[in-house]
């Protein structure tokens, strides 16, 4: 489901977030479907990105995040965070646990051991010209950004850019204080801007 489709689904599921939470607490199957329609794509995108494209595991963690949200929905407090940032917080912890498990295993999951050729095939299948070039260029730029910015700095920028979360909400997702995130954002923006400007000058 694309973001636009997610918006349509969200419009279709017209209930408020409060009603959704109430429905989840009461075990209403309609609320489960609504939760899926409204939030799955955004959770999945977040997890997929944090797992560097391990699609299989990202799908599993997304499903697990939704189930965990239902299980813990009684602890959700709308005064403390938006539902999305609460959900992303669960996803973040699940992802972190997976990354730690991987560190212990010290091996690359099979799902991310994708030969470069298949990436090209996939891209070419959908768009024979521009998409592959665009993707490879974006990968280069992201690679340079990653070399320049820390993982945390990248995360706060993406969370703000992709999800329009406030510093407070990002803090809730990543388990840090609002002020620490504000400070990080300042630094990350400056470093990213400098990197992107340099990239522009290199071309």
């Amino acid at each position, binding site marked *: 489901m694309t973001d636009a489709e997610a918006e349509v689904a969200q419009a279709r599921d017209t209930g408020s977030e409060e009603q959704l939470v109430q429905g989840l607490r009461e*075990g209403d199957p309609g609320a489960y479907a609504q939760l899926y329609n409204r939030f799955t794509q955004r959770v999945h995108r977040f997890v997929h990105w944090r797992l560097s494209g391990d699609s299989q595991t990202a799908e599993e963690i997304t499903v697990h995040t939704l189930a965990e949200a239902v299980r813990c929905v009684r602890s959700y407090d709308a005064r403390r965070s938006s539902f999305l940032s609460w959900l992303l917080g669960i996803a973040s912890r699940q992802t972190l646990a997976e990354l730690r498990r991987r560190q212990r295993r010290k091996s690359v999951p099979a799902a991310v051991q994708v030969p470069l050729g298949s990436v090209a095939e996939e891209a070419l299948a959908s768009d024979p010209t521009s998409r592959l070039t665009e993707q490879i260029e974006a990968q280069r730029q*992201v690679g340079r950004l990653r070399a320049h910015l820390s993982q*945390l700095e990248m995360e706060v*920028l*993406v969370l703000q*850019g992709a999800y329009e979360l406030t510093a407070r909400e990002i803090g809730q997702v990543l388990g840090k204080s609002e002020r620490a995130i504000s400070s990080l954002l*300042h630094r990350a923006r*400056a470093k990213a801007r400098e990197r992107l400007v340099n990239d522009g000058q290199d071309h």
Partner: protein
Amino acid sequence: MGKTIEQQIAELVETARPTPELPPERRDQALAAMEAAGRRPRHVWIWRLSAAAAAGAIVVAIALLGSPARSAWDTVAQVRDRALAAADEAETVHIYGVTPWLGRDVPGHGPEVVETDKEMWADRNGFSRMELRTRDGGQLFYLDLYNGMERVSYCPRQSSDDTSNAHRYWDPEEAQASRGRMQQRVKMQIRRDFSLLGEPDEYRRAAVTHGAVDVLEAESVAWHEDLHYDLHRGEKLRLRAEVDPQTGRLVTLTVFTFNAPSGTWEVKSESHYEWNVPIPGELRTFDIPKGTLEHRYHWWDTRADQVLAQKQTENWTVAVRALDANRSGAVYLSLSAAPNSSTTVTPAESSVVEVKVDAVDDRGVVYQADAEYVGLGTYLGTNIGFPVVLLRPAGESTGRVLTITVHPYMAAGQGQDPMTPDEPVSFRLPLPPRQDCDDVAEDGVELVQH
């Protein structure tokens, strides 16, 4: 309207590695998982017990005890629930007694679980203090205090080649949620002790005696291993709760295990509860003793509230909030720069405040800022925060003093040319000791030797 830097990066990341759509079967899987999670009882372990074991336990219980009165079982649940509800209404609580603890944390003991003395004070405004002492000699070996702004835990040295450690977490945001913390902690303890036996309708025996205090006794077998209590699955357990008949509040809660060789019940944990008693003022603070190595977490947040040095120009007030250095000697400068109320500068609506910083130490080593300029936020909004400027030495620095020059200015937009005159402000400050980490701001741990 142009995209923000965050939006550009989010798009780049998505373009670099597009998120595939979830396959349709994942929807079914997710809905099934959500339904299962919604159905799941609070005690997950129930599902883990096999049907045969449950049936067997019922048969054995009936054979041994006959059919126990349903009312006694109900009363156990009622006592527990009433005690939990009563905890919700209390203003303060003082708990003391005996608790098992892993011996490796207790001075003079091996890894085996040992009995220790515990004492806890808490109020409903978020304050809590817990102390653990050895039973033989009353030596403090763990303290945990939360005062609504920060949490301190203290572990004194246990041997001559050991170090006393304290861990301090600066967590003012938690204060907003700390009302009710006492209730949570106390209820957690009560639930924990009751849950050792499993669910009331699985107790092997339960009885209540009414008197000056109502006494509830219930027996069961441990349904899971518990490292903290040194319990093994299947071990016989007994719980005895003394309850104030007027309020329903717990007076004492004792957990026993059965020592098979001697055929006696032994106290595993004992808690005495005093409700709504005043908390002595001296218990609300804790001075970290000399010789302790303190680990400060989230300490970065305290930077905005302190001032190392401050200077004014015609238009600006610049304050250095903190100087920190990482293991390679790069300096993290926390500062603020605010326009004076008497400023002659006329800002536009979109004006932003930014600073440029350069620095040199007393050995002539130049420090370069890792960004050409650092933004503090929009001028007309309230979003003028304090930034952190990372200054990297151009060579190996052995200097002791750093001269920092800050150029605050206003610009029409982010990264645009200054629209105010250059008013440099210089500070001469001692270089800070190096922290044992790469990124001081991010790692957020500071070591302080008391």
